[in-house]
């Protein structure tokens, strides 16, 4: 009995550990996409944040300074995205792709220049990391709780506040928002900045919570998995959270399954389990399992006729 209990506990803990950055990122992405700004640059924001978190924590010795630096770095990229997509009405996907590529390169360039460890930051010890709060060994640092909290808060903001109502409106029909005498651009900037905040926390979690330092490309596609979770959750916070947990669980299972032969199936390829989020999102997008309807104005720059 104890064994079962401890197995469940371990699986749950490792699911949560893996799901935390996905949840933070997905909630951030939700704000952006609900407001009509498609964000394929979640990955880049998270990566940049992870780098600056580890770099700052390593230099200052403070994990909290690291978190602050992570948020600032992600917000800088978020502002850049906003500038390109909202003010200059550029292509949102192109902007997101550019941010991903810049982040992939810049984190290594700066890391190598500052720490001379081939793009890695020095290993973090003690207070340079976010430590578990209540359950030693479970990795339950403050950002895990922040991620859990971010879901009801995101839901509450989107569903129950004036800002949320306007945000949903601007993602569906910016013209109606304009006609109601509200500023489309200011609403969308706020959405993009909220996205930056959460993606920044996700990045900090990766490099100074879950791991002890930054390593190159450490996001490894999690920004895109978060995007898949948003799609899978049909642009709603709770279902997106559920999708993140499922994806986290898949990952925990993948680690457990390595080299294990299941009766009747044989060895399940780890890669298949890892590819599941993308496969599932694809089936959903293709309309084979339900229909995912994105905010109607997502991806379209708002151009007012004059």
């Amino acid at each position, binding site marked *: 009995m104890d064994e079962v209990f401890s197995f469940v506990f371990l699986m749950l803990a490792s699911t949560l550990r893996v799901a935390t950055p996905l949840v933070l990122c997905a909630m951030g992405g939700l704000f952006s996409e609900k407001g009509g700004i498609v964000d*394929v640059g979640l990955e880049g924001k998270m990566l940049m944040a992870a780098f600056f978190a580890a770099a700052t924590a390593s230099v200052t010795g403070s994990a909290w300074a690291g978190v602050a630096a992570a948020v600032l770095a992600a917000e800088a990229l978020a502002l*850049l995205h906003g*500038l*390109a*997509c909202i003010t*200059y*009405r*550029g*292509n*949102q*996907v*192109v*902007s997101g*792709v*550019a*941010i*991903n*590529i*810049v*982040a*992939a*390169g*810049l984190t*290594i*360039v*700066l890391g*190598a*220049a500052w720490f*001379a460890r*081939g*793009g890695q930051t020095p290993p973090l010890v003690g207070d340079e990391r976010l430590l578990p709060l209540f359950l030693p060994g479970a990795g339950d640092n403050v950002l895990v709780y922040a991620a859990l909290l971010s879901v009801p808060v995101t839901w509450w903001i989107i569903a129950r506040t004036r800002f949320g109502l306007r945000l949903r409106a601007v993602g569906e029909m910016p013209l109606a928002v304009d006609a109601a005498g509200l500023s489309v651009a200011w609403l969308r900037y706020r959405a993009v900045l909220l996205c930056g905040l959460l993606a920044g926390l996700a990045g900090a979690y990766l490099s100074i919570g879950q791991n002890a330092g930054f390593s190159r490309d450490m996001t490894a*596609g999690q920004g*895109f998995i978060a*995007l*898949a979770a948003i*799609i899978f959750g049909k642009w709603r916070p709770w279902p997106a959270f559920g999708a993140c947990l499922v994806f986290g669980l898949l990952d925990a299972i993948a680690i457990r399954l390595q080299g294990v032969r299941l009766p009747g199936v044989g060895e399940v*390829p*780890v*890669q*298949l389990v*890892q*590819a599941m989020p*993308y*496969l599932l*999102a*694809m089936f959903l*997008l*293709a*309309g084979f399992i339900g229909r995912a309807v994105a905010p109607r104005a997502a991806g379209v720059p708002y*151009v*007012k*006729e*004059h």
Partner: protein
Amino acid sequence: MRPAYGPLPAWAEITLLPLINIVLAFLVVGAIVAVIGVDPLHALRLLVVGALGSPESIGYTLYYATNFAFTGLAVAVAFHAGLFNIGGEGQAYIGGLGCGLAILALGRWLPAGLMIPVGIAAAALFGAAWAAVPGWLQAWRGSHVVITTIMFNFLASALMVYLMVNVLIAPGSMTPQSRGFEPSGQLPALPGSPLNLSIALAVGCCFAVWVFLWRTPWGYALRTMGHNPEAAVYAGTNLRRMTMLAMGLSGALAGFVGVNELMGVHHRIVLDFPAGYGFAGIAVALMGRNHPLGIALAALLFGALQQGGAELAFEIPSITREMVVVIQGLIILFSGALVHLPRPWLQFLLARRA
């Protein structure tokens, strides 16, 4: 209320605006280099010498340029059809799988004269098939290629790791790579240089894409769809079929990266050979204004950057070769997403002059 962006004079639109965008990108790069503590002009000198200073470095530059030309063309063909293919990375990967499988299967029996064209065709076919699925999903199921091609990059990567680790790994090998290709499946290359016959294929593709887009009725219909889908319907074009054609061609072109890398250099199937060329293709296409000639020139520039960047990283340890990735990203940013940034200023200046 900000005025809508009116057009600039034609000459400014083709020359001045793109030039300013590139200059802006390089100014930011210079600033980053300076932040690292290196004199930007010194770095630039090293970069140019590294890219063009010796026959060997020119060989590398051209070899890299070959990959950039393929992925740049891939993005451009889709773009002319109004489709944004971000899946070049995965299509290159699967294209390489295609030519690799063909050579592993047939290399023993076919002479080079047959094996090479079959390998190239297999790369095209596999790349096209990998792109055709997102194409189909958009044409028939209405899911946007932007998201699906991104997802297909990850699927390609997962599939390749699985195949390399479990299926295609050479017996007795510790690293996940296939057994070597027979000589009939290896492209002739310059001795001591990765530059191989693929560059001829790239030049051929540039020409063929130009002919296709501007000298065939299908290219005509494809461009019509990209500019104005309603006019394409009016003209009798089947948009679904045209979407499939555009994505297929785009994927085939990206697949040729596999030819250059596997048939030209590695001579076996290896992991991770697309190494960002697929994404860089977006920068190449944007900078080359989606025209094969422009893409050829942009590919040369990117090839030089890639090679020069490697030499630069060798000379100055504090700069890594990922600097080139930053440059690619900034070029996508300034020539793509922020393309309108200098426009109001230019309009203002040109209007005052006139």
